[in-house]
């Protein structure tokens, strides 16, 4: 078994004597490997690929879920429908202009018909995917399951929200629910169209990674009505693939509903109770050491926190990670300490 196959077996409950360390190291962390600020990291695909490879070579025990071609994932849906992406020197990109400013805009969008799969930043994202497909080292793809058949289209319902701004999205749940449903249908249909275009580049989907933090902004009823059906429309389209949902926002108030998300892994955050998440959901949990704390701990503290977490969740269906993406400035020695603790705990548990 290679590293990815082992992690997959653990996630599916078929292997219980390992604790895979599965991190999400992306622009915030990897720009350091590239020695550049964030803007340059995003805009220099060669440098970005080299940074991802360098991270992997430095931490061969780790699977990095952030090993995909990054660009403006958060702007994927908004820019496809006419929005604009903004860039800053050393921060992530943002949606600088919303395509939907009032409810009538949704009707106009519907009348115009679904945009091309390469509309907006999708064009550049697909071009980068092609670059990764051509140049990402074969040995790492084979060992860790990267690139081939991997879809990372970024935020989904949350992307639809960013086409009008979170404020409007959340307020319209009460003011214009029908308009919102119409928009969510259009947005998620297009999102799937983009996924199909990405499959033409990397091959049929084997792994789907979807980030969506919108659930933590709402209560149970709104989640049931405005988020779950659309998230599951995407996840269910790829039944048979291995599906990862990333959301470190707190959703402990509705774990029974969260359990209905049709994915195999939940990359969860530090604010939800691990034991409850374990008991009340079906997911393989990926998490959840607090990223900014992880970046400030001494290695000894990392070991203690990881041991404490592992003692709560046990072996099987668990990937040790930070609760969300890694924070900038995380010392390498802390990642080493996490790896060491995962090995030590797996040995201790499996001898019992």
């Amino acid at each position: 078994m290679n590293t990815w196959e082992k992690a997959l077996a653990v996630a599916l409950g078929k292997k219980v004597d390992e604790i895979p360390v599965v991190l999400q190291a992306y622009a915030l962390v990897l720009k350091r490997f590239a020695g550049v600020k964030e803007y340059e990291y995003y805009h220099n695909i060669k440098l970005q690929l080299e940074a991802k490879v360098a991270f992997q070579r430095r931490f061969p025990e780790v699977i990095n879920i952030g090993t995909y071609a990054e660009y403006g994932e958060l702007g994927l849906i908004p820019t496809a429908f006419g929005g604009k992406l903004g860039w800053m020197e050393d921060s992530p990109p943002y949606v600088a202009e919303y395509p939907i400013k009032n409810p009538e805009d949704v009707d106009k969008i519907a009348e115009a018909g679904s945009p091309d799969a390469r509309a907006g930043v999708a064009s550049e994202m697909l071009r980068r995917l092609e670059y990764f497909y051509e140049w990402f080292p074969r040995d790492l793809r084979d060992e860790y399951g990267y690139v081939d058949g991997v879809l990372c289209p970024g935020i989904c319902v949350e992307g639809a929200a960013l086409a009008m701004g979170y404020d409007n999205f959340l307020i319209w749940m009460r003011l214009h629910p029908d308009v919102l449903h119409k928009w969510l249908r259009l947005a998620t249909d297009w999102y799937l169209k983009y996924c199909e275009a990405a499959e033409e580049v990397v091959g049929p989907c084997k792994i789907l990674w979807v980030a969506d933090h919108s659930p933590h902004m709402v209560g149970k009823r709104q989640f049931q009505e405005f988020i779950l059906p659309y998230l599951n429309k995407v996840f269910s389209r790829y039944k048979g693939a291995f599906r990862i949902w990333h959301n470190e926002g707190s959703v402990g108030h509705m774990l029974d509903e969260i359990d209905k998300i049709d994915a195999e892994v939940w990359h969860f955050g530090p604010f939800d109770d691990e034991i409850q998440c374990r008991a009340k959901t079906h997911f393989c949990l990926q998490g959840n050491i607090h990223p900014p704390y992880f970046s400030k701990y001494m290695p000894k503290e990392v070991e203690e926190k990881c041991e404490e977490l592992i003692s709560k969740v046990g072996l099987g269906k668990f990937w040790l990670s930070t609760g969300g993406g890694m924070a900038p400035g995380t010392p390498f020695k802390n990642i080493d300490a996490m790896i060491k603790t995962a090995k030590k705990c797996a040995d201790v548990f499996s001898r019992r």
Partner: protein
Amino acid sequence: MTLLATSLKEINEAIAELQSDCIQLVKANLMSGIPARKILTEGLIPGLKRVGEKFENKEYFLADMLFAAYVMNECMKVLEPALAEDTEKVPSVGKAVVGTVKDDIHDIGKNIFIALMRASGFDVHDLGINVPAEKFVKAVKEHEPDILGMSALLATTVGYFRTVTDALRRAGLRGKVYVMIGGPPHVAAEEVEADIYCNDAFFGVRKALEYIERKGRGMAT
């Protein structure tokens, strides 16, 4: 219960239960002759406090807070002309300058905080998003606020809180303003030389009011 009390209770109930017809209710009551000041101080503000309590009890979430802030803003648009003409003014509780720090464009928390601060009687100057330290300093010099509120969401931008507090110190202003910071708990107030970290907007408003009270008693720190 008098007709007036019943009307104010309805308004209180409408905002606390997040009903958008609260705005119509405010309009109707204003037209029926109930003073804007009473609608605000005895209807809307107590109702909004209940929203805050429900948020703290995890009955309400971010979407609910935003909607409450939206309803409050719309109600204030209805009330403001009448409040301006009222001979018995709603006294200003204090002044605040608020903004999201440089390189950060997240403004949900900031906007909710501002809506609640205004509803609580603060005169608030909104500096917007992506605000550089010099703009914070300039606004503090110009408006002489009691409170400076800074928001940041990104792990990469919370460090900028310190850039602003350093700039305030260099300008000789740090001791003259109560610095409140908000956003995810990436940073402790003392690390960036702020006065308090606020986990949510309602907590922030409560602490702002407590500060003003302390200041009024000459105990502000």
